């Protein structure tokens, strides 16, 4: 975890920077797995909550008529329970992922304007506003989220959409792999003293995402590339129960349902997050996305981008992720298909002033503290005039109104 080591919190009674009487805008980032909400000018969100209403994820709705109700309930909890503020009083900054469906965005805006009577909303793309936290204009932003990993180069404050790359790899994939292998190989010590496989005891138990997530968060790590190479054929060895000649990480005793103990195989702890870096059938992984995005960029900008990589997203907080990504990138450079085109000899990384899962939120918070909110926000009247449609951030309307190169 990046900035983690440098973050030592302190208790002080010193200057209170947010001691202002004016009403700062609300900043909201509706992530795939977790939603961050808080106020502009503040260094961290007030609350990070799962993006769920009664165990129903807000992004996975079966019919579009369901969505307004889901959002209504969800935003009600955000405004009245977590932020304790009247939605009418404050403008809103929504930090949005680039690939959010238009339907979702329009529904969100309709609910906010009509039901909650929010005076004005401004949508900011998450990759772009991450750069505010670093005071940068040019960087290659790698967002490793729950469902997707996306890479977007930002050059002098302008998103280079042509070089956008994404791949459905993220925490979700790690969860699936953990679930699959735990059911097969996780042994459970039952209260009667016997040891059985998890699949025999209760195969349904892992369908509760929380347990798998907890196991991932508390035990998994991304192994260094060196170990990964030594353990080629990892999966076969693992499935056959063969011992690799490497020292394996220790097994973990995980308490389950109050009376059982699940033994998580040590090899699985490093094997599960491997899915991010394994080359799939289309010869792609998280690392190839970064290199491919660089290749899609202008020749002149490649070196600058490679020396300004920003990694954000919750999944990037798994210990060892950054080290591995860097190692993978360096290894890819040696491959003939990249070596010929890329004249890069090093990759350099920025570390955000906060944990990487709230980096884009913090960018939104900084954006929300400026006058831009006033000049770029979309009011309810404009929204109704525009036939209840929020102009996409990359279409002409947005371009016309926005100020390039912050």
């Amino acid at each position, binding site marked *: *975890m*990046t900035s*983690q*080591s440098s*973050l*030592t*919190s*302190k*208790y*002080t*009674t*010193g200057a209170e*920077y947010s*001691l202002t*009487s004016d*009403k700062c805008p609300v900043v909201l980032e509706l992530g795939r797995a*977790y939603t961050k909400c808080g106020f502009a000018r*503040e*260094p*961290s969100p*007030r*609350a*990070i*909550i799962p993006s769920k209403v009664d165990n129903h994820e807000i992004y996975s709705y079966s019919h579009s008529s369901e969505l307004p109700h889901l959002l209504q309930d969800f935003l009600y909890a955000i405004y*009245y329970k977590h932020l*304790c503020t*009247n939605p*009418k009083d404050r403008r809103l900054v929504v930090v949005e992922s680039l690939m959010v469906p238009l339907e979702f965005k329009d529904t969100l805006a309709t609910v906010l304007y009509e039901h909650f*009577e929010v005076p004005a909303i401004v949508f900011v793309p998450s990759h772009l506003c991450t750069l*505010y936290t*670093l*005071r940068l204009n040019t960087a290659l932003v790698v967002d490793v989220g729950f469902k997707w990993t996306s890479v977007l180069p930002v050059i002098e404050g302008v998103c280079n959409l042509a070089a956008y790359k994404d791949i459905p790899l993220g925490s979700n994939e790690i969860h699936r792999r953990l679930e699959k292998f735990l059911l097969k190989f996780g042994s459970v010590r039952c209260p009667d003293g016997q040891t059985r496989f998890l699949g025999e005891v209760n195969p349904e138990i892992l369908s509760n995402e929380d347990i798998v997530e*907890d196991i991932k*968060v*508390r035990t998994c*790590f991304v*192994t260094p590339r060196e170990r990964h190479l030594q353990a080629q054929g990892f999966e076969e060895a693992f499935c056959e129960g063969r011992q690799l000649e490497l020292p394996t*990480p220790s097994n*973990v*005793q995980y*308490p389950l349902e109050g009376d059982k103990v699940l033994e998580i195989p040590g090899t699985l702890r490093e094997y599960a997050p491997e899915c991010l870096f394994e080359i799939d059938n289309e010869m792609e992984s998280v690392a190839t996305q970064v290199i491919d995005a660089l290749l899609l960029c202008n020749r002149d900008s490649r070196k600058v981008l490679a*020396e*300004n*990589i920003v990694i954000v997203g919750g999944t990037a907080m798994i*210990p*060892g992720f*950054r080290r591995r990504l860097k190692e993978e990138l360096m290894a890819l450079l040696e491959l003939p298909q990249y070596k010929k085109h890329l004249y890069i000899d090093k990759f*350099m*990384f*920025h570390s955000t*002033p*906060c*944990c990487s*899962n709230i980096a884009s939120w913090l960018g939104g918070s*900084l954006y929300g*503290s*400026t*006058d831009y909110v006033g000049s770029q926000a979309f009011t309810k009247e404009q929204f109704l005039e525009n036939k209840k449609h929020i102009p996409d951030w990359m279409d002409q309307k947005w371009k016309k109104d926005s*100020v390039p190169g*912050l």
Partner: protein
Amino acid sequence: MEIFFPKVVNYVCTCGARKPLDVLFYCKHCFKLRCGECVSHEVDTHYCPNCLEFMTSPEARVKKNVCTTCFECPCCGIALYSRGTSKQVPSEKDPSNMVVNKAYYLMCNSCKWSTHDQSLEDQPTQSGGWPRLEAPNQDRVHQLCEYYRIVAHQEKVEKDKKRITQKCGYYISDKYGVASVAAKKYMSLQVTPRKESQKVAAECFASKASEVVDDLPSDFLEELNIDEVTNIRMRLSNPDIQPEKMSMLKMRNLKLLTKKSQRCKECGHSLRKSEYNPGSVKFKIQLSAYYHIPYVRVKQVPNLIAGREVTIELTLTNPTSHEVAVELLPMEEANTPSGSGLLFPEVTCSPQLPKGTLYLPAKDDTAEYDDPADKMDDRNDKSVVTFKRLNKLGIKMQITPKQAENVAIGLRLKHTYTNLIIQGDKREYEVLSLIHPVLLNLSHFAKNSISA
């Protein structure tokens, strides 16, 4: 009560939602039903759920919506309690003499986490005195904030300058007093940001990239005790540091809760407003529909068989202190913009509703202690009314279900409503006629009849 038979009788709110009567509001000013989804909610006051301290909104905003004296457990999120210890220390005046020193620390009653785990010093007073947790990165965030504010301000100035010079053209004539306005605006743009913020912003440097990245902790192969690692909930409850180890947990101030008031979106009048005192559960204004609209309940439903006519029994209750005349109208006649009937697709059966008006006596709180012998009101149709008791009336009607399951009937409840108008010293009563569509789901009663 509705608690025991949920969703048997649903009233249709003005917004179209189907809700039981006891969760609906009744706006006295528009004479319409309102539900939780079509009123505007407002945060009234803030209070601490632990010490019940009352706080006004501006005060809560300054304090970032947290209580300054109460703290929450970083493990389980409940309030921490203060505990006292006494220690013998040498006296200040005379080191050879030992004095008993009282000290206090905070502890969680549930998981036994205490301030000692965070290695905080014990406090000499029972409450308060604990330092406030601040974000480790707040200096940097403050610098960035000021920097971007200045950038945004400068851009705005440039933009407006352009606009003004374009507008003004070649010369400014003061004939119409325009020039002074324009000049004023021009002057206002010259305002430079405060010295301090400029100073802070000047310290804000761009982040430096480095080739060194965070490494995997070297002990990754070693034994891992799951009890020493925090779970995701504990990490996310402290977004600033998101501690990974139990030993890194830090307590945070307890978050405030709010009291909310509801307001009608159409006329802007309050529908419900609670008292400011956090300890009180009373209301200053409470316009629940339960106190104003006649309450329909299902008393008896025999076994429902498709195609066979059966008699069901309903009761009507008048909650107001005025007599109410009720008419039950069929749903189909409803003049809806999209034609008839279609508005309520859940209605599967149409009842033979009693014709004529039913009179419900006013609610009389003292009548409960009187002789229960109730006289029938002669105006009511005796073939319809089954019984009468105080302000409650039982009525029967025939239905012929088309299917045995999912039997739902709909009716429109037309009733009089006595509205009190106070103008100065004059008190006038105005009798209005209101209609509310009501949906009754009889399937709950299909197995056995229950008396309401």
